[in-house]
């Protein structure tokens, strides 16, 4: 730990110089925005890669400019998957909701002015940026070197995520404003906090796995690759040649990583839902407990990914039980969302649409998760396509919808301008239809690939159906990705000449970030520390004039109904 981490003293003034102000800044807002830009770059890069894969699956001979010139070795396709996965999971799903929005809005929401260790935060961001560069560069390098560079980049990302996690946890625990008790913490802050704890535990596991694997590649050790002459004895449960040790370490990380990506999205969705339903979060305390439970269960179910690779015959049952029990907190969250929406005067802004889309996608994807959590079904009934469809719905696009909802919600605070609503709604509906058209058929594809056929004609029918489905998915994904151009245009155009958000609280939200100007001044709250007087979701109180009461409003400042 770096004990020499110095924040600026108060009152802060903007430091001179472009580099220290905008590039190597220790200000949490600058760093948060930098993460968001990084994620925006990565998400379009990742989408382009998925497009390449889809085209390659359906039209394998097609000539793609630039990409085809890199050669057509089979490893190229594997590299596409690895690069797409690492960009999307690390740089988008992990970085955007947590490090991006979290860095910007966690200190603002809890009245902290800064992260606990600003210099460490600066290091984290630049390590993440370097890691992105390394992961991308690995794709173009010669294969052996490329894998090593990729692995080093992932290890660097682990270190950066660990430091970010320390920063978030300590900030929530020790830097909350006066009156911001844990029960008054916005659910977004709760989610960022729990995510940080989870991340602090699991990224060290992936770091250890990366160190061992790097040692295997560079120092010639054999931690994971057991040579054929020494393959596992018959008595062992492990199938020979399967790097079980790597799988254990990796899935210990990766299963929990799903919740590192999803927890902030749960928090954001619940927060936005209450704001746009103009109602308090239904059973707020149960939601907090459910978020904790997601973290705890998510930490314990790595084994469900190893049903196929051989383990003690009794352990799959345990993992299946634990994995299935994840449905409980998910149900609590769902009921809270529905309870919040019940009888509400819902404001269908683009942000709200994306949140509702998030809930729809999370539920649709979560349902297929019930099949995958059962060791017998997972092993026998489904193939890779089913799993691809499942986790893209529940983790990939669901989380992306929450991120987009958050972006539409916070854009006025970030830039002082508003995103265009009609364009946003058009983008939402096209994307919403598009992702279902892409990922639902994948479930079907996964199911039919295990169809038992008893005649040649049946086999032909199944094969034709599979080919048709693949072509359909590819066409749908091309259209869906094309629709993202609307978003990109909306984003850039609104950034430059969007409608000015002339009020500092356009959504009439309650949390502290809306009590200051948009975009927030360099020192956030000015010369005085904020004080919090109430919970985060006081909407539509019976005897109050306004339909919301901000957290910073003292009881005697609240205007009453006459």
């Amino acid at each position, binding site marked *: 730990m770096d004990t020499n981490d110095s924040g600026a003293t108060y009152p802060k003034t903007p430091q001179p110089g472009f580099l220290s102000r905008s590039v190597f800044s220790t200000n949490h807002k600058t760093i948060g925005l930098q993460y968001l830009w990084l994620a925006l770059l990565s998400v379009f890069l990742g989408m382009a890669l998925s497009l390449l894969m889809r085209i390659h699956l359906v039209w394998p001979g097609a000539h793609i400019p630039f990409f085809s010139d890199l050669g057509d070795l089979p490893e190229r396709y594997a590299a596409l998957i690895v690069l797409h996965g690492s960009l999307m999971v690390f740089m988008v799903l992990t970085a955007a909701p947590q490090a991006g929005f979290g860095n910007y809005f966690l200190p603002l929401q809890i009245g902290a002015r800064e992260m606990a260790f600003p210099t460490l935060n600066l290091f984290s961001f630049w390590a993440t940026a370097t890691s992105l560069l390394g992961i991308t560069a690995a794709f173009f390098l010669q294969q052996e070197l490329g894998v090593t560079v990729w692995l080093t980049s992932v290890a660097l990302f682990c270190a950066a995520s660990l430091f970010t996690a320390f920063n978030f946890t300590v900030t929530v625990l020790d830097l909350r404003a006066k009156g911001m008790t844990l029960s008054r913490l916005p659910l977004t802050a709760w989610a960022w906090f729990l995510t940080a704890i989870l991340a602090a535990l699991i990224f060290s596991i992936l770091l250890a796995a990366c160190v061992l694997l790097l040692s295997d590649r560079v120092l010639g050790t054999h931690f994971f690759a057991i040579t054929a002459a020494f393959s596992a004895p018959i008595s062992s449960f492990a199938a020979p040649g399967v790097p079980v040790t790597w799988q254990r370490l990796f899935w210990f990380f990766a299963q929990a990583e799903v919740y590192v990506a999803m927890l902030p999205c749960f928090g954001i969705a619940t927060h936005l839902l209450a704001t746009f339903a103009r109602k308090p979060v239904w059973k707020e305390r149960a939601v907090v407990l459910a978020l904790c439970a997601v973290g705890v269960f998510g930490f314990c179910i790595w084994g469900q990914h190893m049903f196929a690779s051989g383990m003690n015959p009794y352990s799959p049952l345990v993992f299946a039980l634990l994995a299935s029990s994840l449905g409980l907190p998910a149900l609590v969250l769902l009921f809270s969302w529905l309870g919040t929406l019940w009888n509400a005067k819902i404001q269908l802004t683009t942000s709200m649409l994306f949140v509702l889309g998030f809930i729809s996608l999370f539920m649709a994807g979560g349902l297929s998760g019930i099949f995958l959590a059962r060791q017998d079904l997972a092993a026998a009934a489904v193939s890779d396509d089913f799993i691809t469809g499942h986790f893209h719905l529940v983790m990939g696009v669901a989380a992306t919808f929450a991120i987009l909802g958050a972006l539409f919600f916070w854009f006025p605070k970030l830039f002082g301008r508003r995103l265009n609503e009609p364009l946003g709604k058009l983008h939402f509906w096209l994307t919403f239809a598009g992702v279902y058209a892409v990922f639902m058929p994948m479930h079907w594809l996964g199911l039919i690939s295990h169809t038992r056929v008893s005649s040649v004609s049946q086999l032909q029918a199944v094969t034709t159906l599979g080919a048709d489905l693949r072509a359909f998915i590819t066409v749908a994904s091309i259209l869906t990705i094309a629709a993202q151009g609307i978003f990109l245009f909306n984003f850039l155009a609104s950034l430059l000449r969007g409608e000015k958000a002339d009020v500092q609280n356009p959504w009439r939200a309650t949390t502290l970030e809306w009590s200051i100007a948009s975009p927030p001044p360099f020192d956030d709250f000015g010369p005085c520390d904020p004080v*919090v007087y109430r919970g985060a979701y006081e909407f539509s109180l019976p005897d109050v004039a306004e339909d919301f009461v901000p957290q910073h409003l003292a*009881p005697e400042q609240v205007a009453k109904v006459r």
Partner: protein
Amino acid sequence: MPSTTAPPDIELIIEDIGGGGGRGKPPAGGDDGGDSGPGGKGGGNRPRPSPPSSRRYYTGMALGIVSILMFFMALASAFLVRRGTSLDWVPVRLPPVLLVNTLILLSSSLTLELARRRLGQTDLGGFRTLWSVTTGLGLLFLLGQLIAWRQLVSAGVFIASNPASSFFFIFTGLHALHLFGGVGALLYVALRKFELAKISRSVAAEITSYYWHFMDALWVFLLALLYLGR
């Protein structure tokens, strides 16, 4: 220099009272107006920004220790799984110098605590001497680990020889790397001019001591694992 003693410690006490977020008595909540809560109309007497408390360093170090523990537990579990599923395991004969190193490291924890006691008695000279002894013992331990490595190498046991030797070098190497960071922290506490720092000497010394003792215990655990899991 026993004359310049007291200020850092007094500073620490003041800082701790000013402790941080949310722990202070929360202002009256609820929406039953008429409560004489702080902050009049317009929030005129909101609190001025208080100097940052040092509690964040304790929390940060606690979290860091948990993370490092997870890191080494991942390695230890890899060790156990690899040990159980392979036939290519050739036990490593642990060099006896490791026992000497262990004693050196344990005694460094002792001198560290003695040094902190001197600091508590505002005996800065005694603190500096014992703190330097601790740093020296830490460096001596690292030297001893290097000797153990050289003994193994000269006996023909390399990192790539077999899984057992690989784990030995990886465990000792990564622990040494972390301990090297601890030596850096010791030097920081010894050399930093704390009159200018946000953190007081005794807080820095206390946080460093947590890390150092943790490294100490971790080494004992790793040595036991390496010995029992041969």
